């Protein structure tokens, strides 16, 4: 499945697919010696922060987080990660809800259960909270609250240039 490089876990082997960004980003990647169809091995990807370390033909390459977010890869494993780490435009399926207390009830009552599809719509101007689309309505929650919702990406936003890119 095509997914984002940052969604993949340590020790995973993936194939570089595409870059969901303009030519600049592709050039940057080429400078690092990474080309489409390359098979790379992820050596270090710490949750939600820092650069990503990968290995291509025994050569170590470090890709900055911002760039890595845009790198699409083909992965053979299923990624499960917190909703808080999902990028705008991506669609995910809820795998597990670990929330506790009142928030757990609220989410369950609004229909956020295993198997439900979510789409990340936007983050607030200051980066928190986030807005997700569920079947039929939009929901906001704080990043901290989104941390305990585990999801698996099912569809990655591929548009290289979004129409209203400055607006999202």
């Amino acid at each position, binding site marked *: 499945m095509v997914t984002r490089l940052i969604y993949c876990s340590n020790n995973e082997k993936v194939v570089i697919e595409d870059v969901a960004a303009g030519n600049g980003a592709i050039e940057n990647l080429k400078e690092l010696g990474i080309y489409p169809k390359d098979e790379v091995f992820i050596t270090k990807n710490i949750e939600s922060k820092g650069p990503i370390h990968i290995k291509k033909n025994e050569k170590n390459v470090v890709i900055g987080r911002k760039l890595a977010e845009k790198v699409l890869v083909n992965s053979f494993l299923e990624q499960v990660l917190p909703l808080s780490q999902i990028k705008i435009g991506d669609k995910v399926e809820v795998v597990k809800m670990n929330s506790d207390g*009142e928030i757990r*009830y*609220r*989410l369950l009552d609004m*229909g956020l*259960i295993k198997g439900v599809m979510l789409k990340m719509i*936007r983050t*607030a101007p200051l980066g928190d909270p986030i807005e997700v689309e569920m079947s039929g309505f939009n929901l906001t929650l704080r990043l901290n609250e989104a941390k305990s919702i585990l999801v698996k990406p099912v569809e990655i936003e591929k548009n290289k240039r979004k129409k*209203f890119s400055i*607006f999202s």
Partner: protein
Amino acid sequence: MKKINGKNLAYFLDNETVPKPKIEKPKQILVALAGNPNCGKTSLFNKLVGANQRVGNWAGVTVERFEGSTFHRDYLIKIIDLPGTYSLTTYSPEEIVARNFIVEEKPDVVINVVDSTNLERNFFLTTQLIDIQANLIVALNMMDEVEDKKTQIDIGHLENLLGIHTIPTSAVKGTGIEELLDHVVDLYTNKIVTKHNKLVFSDLSEHFIERISEILKTDEELSAKYVPRWLAIKLLVNDKDIYGLIHGRPIWIKIHQILEEAIRRVKIEQNTDPEMLLKEERHSFIRGAIRETVKFKPKIKRTTTEIIDSLLINRITGLPIFALFMWLIFQVTFRLGEMPMNLIENLFTALSNFIVQIIPEGIGRSILVDGVIAGVGGVLVFLPNIMILFLSLSFLEGTGYMARAAFVIDKVMHKFGLHGKSFIPMITGFGCSVPAFMATRTLKSESDRITTLLVIPFMSCGAKFPVYVLVAGTFFDQNSAGNVLFGIYLLGVVIALISARLMKSILFKDISEPFVMELPPYRMPTFKTLMFQMWFRASQYLRKAGTIILFVSVLIWVASNFPKSESVEKLYITKIENVKQNVNLSDEQKLQKITKLESKKNSLQLENSAVGIAGKFIEPIVRPLGFDWKLGLSIVTGIAAKEIIVSTMGTLYSLGSDSGNTDALREKLLASDKYNKAVAISFLVFILLYIPCFAASIVFHREAGSWKWTAFYAVYTMSVAWLISFVAYNIAGLFLL
């Protein structure tokens, strides 16, 4: 469809419907409206009962209870609008209120208002109402939008699946209202029936529901009152209230065993817990039912809401647009509100002048003019602000921008333990605390609302401004006076935010309020609803707060006029007489002397009055802040209203209470050796932070809903004011002398 235990789930199974006998019943029907937030319940309620409604509070909680009635086919239909909820668990006061009403009061008919553009989420509540076996009718509201979207809903099939009569309505267009009322009457008179279908869960869940229900049925008292199956389901989903209801009873031992077994088996067979399992199954029924009855037209274009959102809350323009809206609300409320406020003030001045002319001088006139009329005027001046603010707020709420405003600013507010929705009440506090306190109604959670209420007093209100100008302008040169003013406002905000942080981490330590919130589609609220909301808030203020405010203002008038010292009165009357008799003086000179003597008299009488005594009494308390009894007394009268502070000082310095006299007052203040810059700073800080006027305090009490909080509010604002002033006085003393 989801398979559990290898078998397809049936959605609903018909219970045997026993035809009910047709009996003569009283021609009065009690109807409850239940539904999700934003489903258009309030609009539908307004359409059903028109202006014929009353508002109260649900016992014990600060949730409003709307009640109205209408006549239909000879029946008096009394409708209770339950608070909007997503579910009938007992997590919020709204849910408890809604559930208790349906379960305990057993209304004749429950209308479940459903947002048809969003059936999946709305039906979650519907299925719970089915569990309770309420006498249900479903109103498929927002049908106009469904039609616009070209979604098709097979209503006949839906009715069969749910076993409930289902009526398409549009609260905005006014369609389906008659039909809805027809069905209410028909259901009540047993012309039609609700089938009391039940929702059938998986075999595993059913096994335990059945076993627990069987035991519950042996408790006759319980099963006469509640539906055993519903209790069983609630026990399996860990409902605290139902647990509390049953766990003291003899049957509990057996039920407890079954519950434990259920937890074990669900863990082994489904690797989850019964609560999650039942909720998931409920959702999968709903999804199945919708798949069978609703045909969505695939959406190709971006919806209007998506387009508006991409403009209003995107990363770049989101904050500026938010700031613009907030600025607009503030300006409209307080600038536009100024005109009617002046009008009201002028009207009341004219009225007092008129009365002064027709009634001879005396205590009676004084009570009427300075007590009652001034009091009524004092109540009414807040009205324009309240009405405009609530018009704006209902507009923001009704269109759906309110939730977005909270979304945009939440990160900042959350840093201080507040909610995104606390922002509007807080900035309103810069204008006036009265509407600001009332605006906290938009906050749903108790801890957020109380915290916001408690920090609003520190947002410097407009009435304090003249005091700042007087004091800062007197003791500081033109350049630094501006800085001092700015510093005062800033200090208020800082204290407010620190207080919020403290309260959230001390008073509400273990309460974490989730931000989980729906961003509803943008909709245009109807003019009628807006007007209604505005009028409703205004009338609530008048009835609930206005009367007490009036009463207290008369009290304060009395306290500042009595007891009167007879000897002072006599002394000055003779002095004035002497001036009048003095042939050596010209008329002009006489007038000057008399005015001076009058002022002196007033000042002495104020000193002798109850308020004056209070001012002197607190002198030792305010001494460490650098205040003499005169400043202390000004502070005391400021509790009545901040506008009075300057005029009290005028009276105390025997200048008469006209505000035109500020220049003279400045000279007096400067001339006194008791005052200096440090005292000025200390006084400014105290005025900024201490308890708002009593009108605001009364509104605070109404909104906070308990004496405990009102007492805390008084003590907190007073001690913070004292403490910070003390610090400010001593620090300023080091640098400014």
